[in-house]
């Protein structure tokens, strides 16, 4: 906890100036917080109100109804979209953690030719805008017949330079002596990695899991391009399409938005630390 000025002599917690400053501060930060949280609240209340089209600014809807949700489930394949989003984010996460921990360990602890140059090259790929590779990847995948398939959705994302970077940093921080001791006991290089170092990298792996999952869950561009039929959509693309189809039915659109917003919010509230770490390290937001 940082100390404040008021712990020191000469700074008084009283007087008109102090109270004016304090009250202004609280009012301003509360207005800011309402601005950030308001859209979440209105998403929910619109989804739950009976007649959202009438432009009522009800803070709490007069009558709460789940009509929009049941209309949503009747009219569009929401279940399928959730399934797709989980398959996409889940598969990408599993592959990433597997491949990136192997590579992260190799770049940190194994000594092979050209290691540092290769690592620099990988880091440099983080600077490539996504749209540049999407067009050629689209062409390659259409040659393979992977358009509108789970393979096409998942495979381009199964490794990430960010994951390698994150795990390498972590492995570099672990003592080298552990591995040397295990080597003397006759462990091979893979077992040293798998039984000694990987269990010690749990915090970094957790960060990568949560971050990759959310980042993929939120990915909009790629599913928009690769999913050509409704049954292959993931949630952000589905919401975008639902908005186009049900232009005037904001209750239904916001019901869909509510369902999409809930998982990231819950995940964030329960694992805040890991999110923030992932985001500050990568410089990406979800």
């Amino acid at each position, binding site marked *: 906890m*940082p*100390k*404040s000025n008021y712990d020191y002599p*000469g700074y008084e917690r009283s007087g008109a100036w102090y109270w004016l400053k304090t009250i202004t501060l609280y009012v301003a*930060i509360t207005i800011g917080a309402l601005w*950030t949280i308001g*859209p*979440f609240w*209105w*998403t929910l209340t619109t989804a739950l109100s009976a007649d959202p089209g009438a*432009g*009522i600014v009800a803070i709490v809807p007069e009558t709460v109804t789940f009509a929009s949700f049941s209309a949503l489930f009747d009219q569009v394949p929401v279940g399928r979209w959730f399934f797709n989003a989980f398959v996409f984010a889940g598969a990408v996460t599993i592959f990433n953690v*597997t*491949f990136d921990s192997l*590579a992260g360990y*190799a770049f940190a602890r*194994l*000594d*092979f*030719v050209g290691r540092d140059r*290769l690592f620099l090259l*990988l*880091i*440099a*790929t983080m*600077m*490539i*805008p*996504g*749209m*540049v*590779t999407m*067009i*050629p*990847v*689209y*062409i*390659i995948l259409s040659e393979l017949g992977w358009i509108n398939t789970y393979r096409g959705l998942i*495979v381009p994302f199964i*490794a990430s330079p960010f994951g390698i970077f994150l795990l390498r940093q972590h492995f570099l921080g672990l003592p080298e002596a552990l591995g040397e001791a295990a080597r003397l006991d006759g462990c091979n290089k893979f077992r040293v*990695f798998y039984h000694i170092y990987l269990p010690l990298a749990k915090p970094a792996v957790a960060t990568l899991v949560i971050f990759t999952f959310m980042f993929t869950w*939120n*990915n909009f*561009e790629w599913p928009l*391009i690769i999913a050509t039929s409704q049954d292959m959509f993931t949630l*952000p*693309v589905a*919401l975008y399409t639902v*908005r186009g189809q049900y232009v005037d039915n904001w209750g239904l659109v*916001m019901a869909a*938005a509510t369902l999409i917003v809930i998982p990231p919010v819950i*995940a*964030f*509230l329960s694992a*805040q630390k890991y999110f923030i770490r992932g*985001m*500050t390290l990568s410089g*990406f*937001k*979800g």
Partner: protein
Amino acid sequence: MSRGFHEYKDRIGGALPATPFSAEKHPDNLAGFLFILPNLVVFSAFLFGPVIYAFYLSFTEWSIIAGEATWIGLENYRDLLYPLPWANDWAVLDRPTENLWWYAVINTLTFVIGTVPLGIFGGLTVALVLDKRIRFRKFYRTTFFMPVMLSGAVSAVIWRWILSVDGIVNSLLAPVGLDHAWAGDPATALFAVIMIAVWGGIGFNMIIFLAGLQNIPEELYEAARIDGTSQWQQFRHVTWPNLQNTYFFVIVLAIINSFQVFGIAQAFAEGGPYYSTTVIVVRIYQEAFQNGNLGYASAMAFILFVFVFAFSYYQYRIRGQGEVTY
């Protein structure tokens, strides 16, 4: 004999340098490459290969319908860049159809100039307030960070409802006569997109600034307090100079990310009305996946790539010098 020579001799153990592939110099050659093999395959197929392929594509005419490339040299780049933006007295500013690429560049610059300072000023202000010992600061931090969790496309759809003709913002503004078709008017749509991006980005900047603030040694403030400095003086002479690395990092990152904005603009108004929210990546998407001109779109993507890469490289170099870690 120079000191460098002895160091070198010690390092190689007094022997001649081993060949690059010898097990003596690199004991883990086989294991190392096996460990990174899956990544190498994926990156070659979906990153390195495609970047080179994109460069080639930008010199071809490739339509989704024909499905094959015809070499046309620099024609794509010529069609893209001409007429230059200042031709016919900057006609592109009034008529997007004059040259859509430059119009998209101007929209993107407007977006960058709008979001970056607002987002950074907002993020810094919130971080400064929430770094203090105020009540409920954990709650406030969580609140400001919440929008960062959303996909840009999702927040754009939510805001489209809030800003719609009979949405919440208009019902608040109608009594004072300021209600407006925010998304339907080319004059305001891009500003709405800027506002959504700021809403979604402040929490992110806040977190990085908070990390920066926590890295400032407490002793500096203690010394300042003993001198009886005011809060403003402490900010001006302790906080601000010590945040230099942080705000450099945040600014460059914000610029790089803003240049690549897509989800918010696409989901808010599909690049419209009248091209007013057509930013560079929306333009690339339209040309590639709606018009099917993959070669032409690759030329645009490559210009963006060169620009973003140069910027990122600059940031990487400076960041390396400053040794900022989070």
